């Protein structure tokens, strides 16, 4: 990514020595602020909680077809106090509401104020002891780019999460695949594998910095969904929520053009489709700057298959949760 020195300087804002000025009349600034404050209606996002669901270890194939029926509205914001989780290979604590401390040993640090956090949405998962990798077929993709073979899959455990059985892989335009390696890692017979993908399909669309991707998270059951909308200066909006069979579906728009950060502003407007299968405990995330109708068409044409493979998590402390961070591929 290209990063400006001037943007990097912004990250040191509180450390820059500034000689205060008496040039401005605080009472006038206050009067202006109050006038604006009273003129504006503050919008508040409602909260919604998704209950934990039972584990059903079965092989299943599901076709997401016409998605309809509105469910309750909602999203919420906030990182609650007292959570321990893993993020980027480091242990993370939330010492207080909205506070995140990344414990990397001697170089541990506070994450930036959550309002400047490079995260759109935070999903909380309960650690599951046993999980079953989910694979999928993408039967339709936008036609404006030349997609590589969606079966060319390679895997990377991006989070290096020690407690979850967590699978994620992706396909990139320029990356040669190591499908065999992933198959071997999963222990899945190749003949069973040949028609399915596992994980993370991403692509730049139209030269935009943000990626289009399909991301299937398995290995944990959705316990509670707390969303942090509008972080890093972006403005998030839940466009609609609905259910379709076992899927709880959410369509979000993140408008990064209002971000405080020039680098993030360039991302424009990104659409997200989040499809939670509460029965089998996985999340499908489809996101990109492409038209939401195209995202929906991708979703409508996807098939998912919960494999019969059983993966067992390492022993996890009960108070450790997983934060699924939906990053936006800045840059």
């Amino acid at each position, binding site marked *: 990514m290209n990063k400006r020195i001037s943007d990097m300087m912004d990250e040191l804002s509180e450390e*820059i020595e500034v000689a205060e000025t008496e040039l401005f009349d605080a009472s006038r600034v206050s009067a202006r602020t*109050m006038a*604006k404050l009273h003129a504006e209606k503050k919008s508040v996002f409602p909260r919604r909680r998704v209950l934990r669901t039972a584990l059903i270890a079965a092989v299943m194939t599901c076709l997401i077809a016409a998605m309809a029926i509105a469910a309750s509205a909602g999203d919420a914001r*906030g990182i609650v106090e007292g959570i321990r989780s893993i993020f980027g290979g480091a242990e993370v604590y939330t010492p207080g509401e909205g506070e995140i401390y990344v414990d990397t040993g001697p170089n541990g640090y506070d994450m930036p104020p959550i309002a400047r956090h490079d995260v759109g949405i935070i999903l909380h998962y309960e650690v599951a002891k046993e999980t079953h990798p989910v694979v999928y077929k993408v039967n339709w993709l936008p036609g404006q780019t030349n997609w590589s073979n969606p079966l060319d899959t390679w895997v990377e455990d991006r989070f290096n999460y020690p407690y979850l059985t967590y699978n994620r892989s992706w396909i990139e335009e320029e990356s040669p695949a190591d499908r065999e390696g992933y198959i071997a890692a999963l222990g899945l017979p190749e003949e069973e594998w040949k028609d399915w993908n596992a994980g993370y399909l991403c692509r730049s669309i139209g030269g935009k910095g943000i990626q289009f991707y399909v991301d299937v998270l398995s290995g944990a059951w959705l316990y509670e969904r707390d969303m942090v909308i509008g972080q890093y200066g972006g403005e998030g909006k839940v466009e609609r929520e609905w259910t379709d069979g076992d899927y709880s579906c959410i369509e979000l728009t993140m408008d990064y053009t209002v971000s405080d950060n020039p680098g993030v502003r360039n991302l424009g407007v990104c659409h997200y489709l989040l499809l939670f299968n509460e029965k089998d405990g996985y999340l499908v995330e489809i996101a990109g700057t492409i038209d939401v109708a195209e995202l929906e068409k991708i979703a409508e044409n996807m098939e998912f298959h919960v494999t019969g493979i059983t993966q067992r998590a390492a022993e996890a402390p009960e108070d450790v949760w997983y934060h699924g961070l939906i990053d936006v591929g800045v*840059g």
Partner: protein
Amino acid sequence: MSKPDTEESRIAALRRGDEQALEQLIRQYTPYAGAIVWGIVGGKLTRDDAEEILSDVFLTLWKNADRIRPGKLKGYLASIARSRALDALRRSGETLELEEDVLALPDADPERQLTQAEERRLLRKTLSELPEPDHTIFIRHYYFCQKTAEIAAALDMNVNTVQTKLKRGREKLRLALAEGGYEHE
């Protein structure tokens, strides 16, 4: 006994929707936020414009009170003040002419939070090692986004000298990033 008037208590009051707390914070921080805003827009926009920007800054503070950690208020205000001032400059048609401002860094991913921390450390180290007036020039240019001619006039220096000192600062930052394992141009 009344509760001590701390930053924490004021933020808590903001979160409760206490407008008096906001007014107190405006009184306390207008000189600070005003210096940042004026450091950026001074000489380009009017004082009235700057007051308008400041009111936007404090309105943002009000709206985002639940995201601000005690002890981080000043940094948050600084960041918002800078951002709003730069936005206002852009809207006015002013172009930011910054010397070779772009570094190429690895793509962002979930590990990026760690990268940013390291990035901040390296930038902080670089700045602390810059002698004066190089340090001041670097801050004026890359933080307050002041043009080299403006800086030269303010510090009574030659524009070429300012550019040379900026180049030296950039080179030190490049070296620090390289030592930290970053790619750069």
